[in-house]
């Protein structure tokens, strides 16, 4: 009886219900995107009293010929690749380990996600202390007890060892995300599939390849894509841990707020947008081609 008027009202009601979300996203995501593009053509400092001057593509030219940017791009790609592969593989391995009933399973699962939900600042304090050059427990164990290094690596003061440190930190911090995602999907796999494979004489690796991998593929794609995007734009973990690893996030932040060059920072953002879109479009094509829509 009341069904007919309902259809009519949907447009209006939907607009009303979605208004707060859409308004905020337009104001604080869509408009800033356009604004970014506009600012990128200007020479503009952070001081609001200084008028911006139009300089065309000058900012872009400057960035794309800047060795610091290109190096930073390389560092960021390597950082993203290593942390995505590391956190995904570790997360999957731990999920497989957890995919059986055992005592303390629930509490163990809660404990593992602690590193993932705690704020970076707390974790970074602990890591800075553990890896301290003079009295950190890591150097004590690796140098004085196990003699892995002759001399304590200066974890925070050399680009090479700092890079290793931020990668290990990211894998440690983000594998729980892959872990919970994979554990959820692993629990839906029918056990008879494994039993059938076993009767066929499949080895553990073959069982993984034939049964597990196809079943977790949709989740694997999502986990890898999202993690890759987030690691590519990582700022605070690296910024708080060390000033020796110049990823794009840090390059962008410092251009804007340390060197007060908003125009150049905006054009870095635009370049990163373009990379993001390229990745999304590429991923979409892959996902569609795999038939996982």
């Amino acid at each position: 009886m009341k069904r007919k008027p309902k259809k009519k009202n949907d447009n209006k009601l939907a607009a009303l219900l979605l208004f707060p979300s859409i308004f905020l996203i337009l104001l604080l995501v869509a408009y800033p995107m356009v604004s970014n593009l506009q600012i990128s053509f200007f020479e503009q400092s952070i001081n609001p009293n200084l008028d911006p001057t139009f300089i065309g593509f000058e900012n872009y030219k400057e960035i794309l010929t800047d060795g610091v940017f290109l190096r930073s791009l390389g560092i960021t790609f390597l950082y993203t690749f290593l942390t995505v592969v590391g956190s995904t593989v570790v997360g999957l391995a731990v999920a497989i380990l957890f995919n059986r009933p055992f005592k303390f399973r629930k509490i163990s699962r809660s404990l593992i996600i602690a590193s993932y939900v705690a704020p970076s600042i707390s974790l970074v304090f602990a890591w800075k202390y553990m890896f301290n050059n003079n009295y950190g427990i890591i150097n004590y164990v690796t140098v004085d007890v196990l003699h892995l290094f002759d001399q304590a690596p200066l974890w925070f003061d050399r680009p090479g060892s700092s890079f290793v440190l931020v990668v290990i930190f990211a894998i440690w911090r983000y594998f729980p995300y892959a872990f919970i995602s994979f554990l959820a999907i692993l629990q839906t796999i029918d056990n008879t599939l494994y039993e059938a494979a076993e009767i066929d004489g499949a080895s553990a690796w073959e069982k993984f390849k034939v049964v597990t991998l196809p079943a977790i593929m949709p989740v694997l794609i999502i986990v890898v894509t999202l993690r890759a995007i987030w690691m590519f734009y990582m700022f605070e973990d690296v910024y708080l841990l060390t000033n020796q690893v110049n990823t794009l996030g840090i390059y962008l932040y410092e251009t804007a707020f340390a060197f007060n060059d908003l125009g150049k920072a905006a054009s870095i953002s635009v370049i990163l947008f373009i990379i993001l879109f390229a990745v999304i479009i590429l991923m979409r094509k892959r996902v569609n081609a795999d038939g996982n829509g």
Partner: protein
Amino acid sequence: MLMAMASSRKDKRTRKIFFYLGLAIVLIVSLFPFFIMLMTSLKNSAEAIAQVPTLLPKQWTLEHYVDIFNPVLFPYITYFNNSLIVSLMVAAISVLFSIFGAYALSKLKFFGRSTINSSFYIVYMFSGLLLVVPLFKIISSLNLYDTRTALVITLIVQTLPAAIYMLKSYFDTIPDDLEEAAMMDGLNRIQIIFYIIIPLSISGIISVFVYAFMIAWNDFLFASIFLSSSENFTLPIGLNTLFSTPDYVWGRMMAASIVTALPVVIMYGITERYIKGGATEGGVKG
């Protein structure tokens, strides 16, 4: 036959040993930094910088916990309150807006629904980092620079897409018949949201609340851009200033780290059974 049985039993036992060994390694690696945090916060300052580090304190002390709550030494309570206010506001507003948005996307048929749906998903993948320059200008021109309001509104936008996505998948599981029956009884759409949809998806709403609270509580980037005076600082940037002082005390920093991490870790611990993983749930941006 007997020997085969015995060996398979032995096999089972070795497997079990390996399993618990693996579990122990995973737990130790995951929790070791937290253990160090806790133990250092309970050591006195001399022991914290001893050349030969100790695992457990030789002398247990609570002085660092007393110190961080002493406003003369360090404005921890101010930072904590700012973080709490900002995070509660972000979580509450995100929950409200995302209930409305998710209901529309899940239950209503309207023009542009699928476009809006997929644009939310794209926004979810965006990082706030890419928008810092224009956001800084917008916040300044709205005269919101150095206010907690600036942080609240920008963080709501960070949480909304995932919040809507999470709730929509909850609402999708509520059968339409239920709503139609309620409409027959004379309830309008708004009443249906409050009397039927919300009570049925309480666990989803709790996870959205926890998620949004966590994003706000952990945020460092926006706070570092929008806040400049110490009385407005939230915990992440407030604590970071501890490193700028030359005479930082490790025990105090570790005590502060623990108390800062506790609210979100406890919230997740309690609501953990609602977290099922997957595409967006519990996804931390940044």
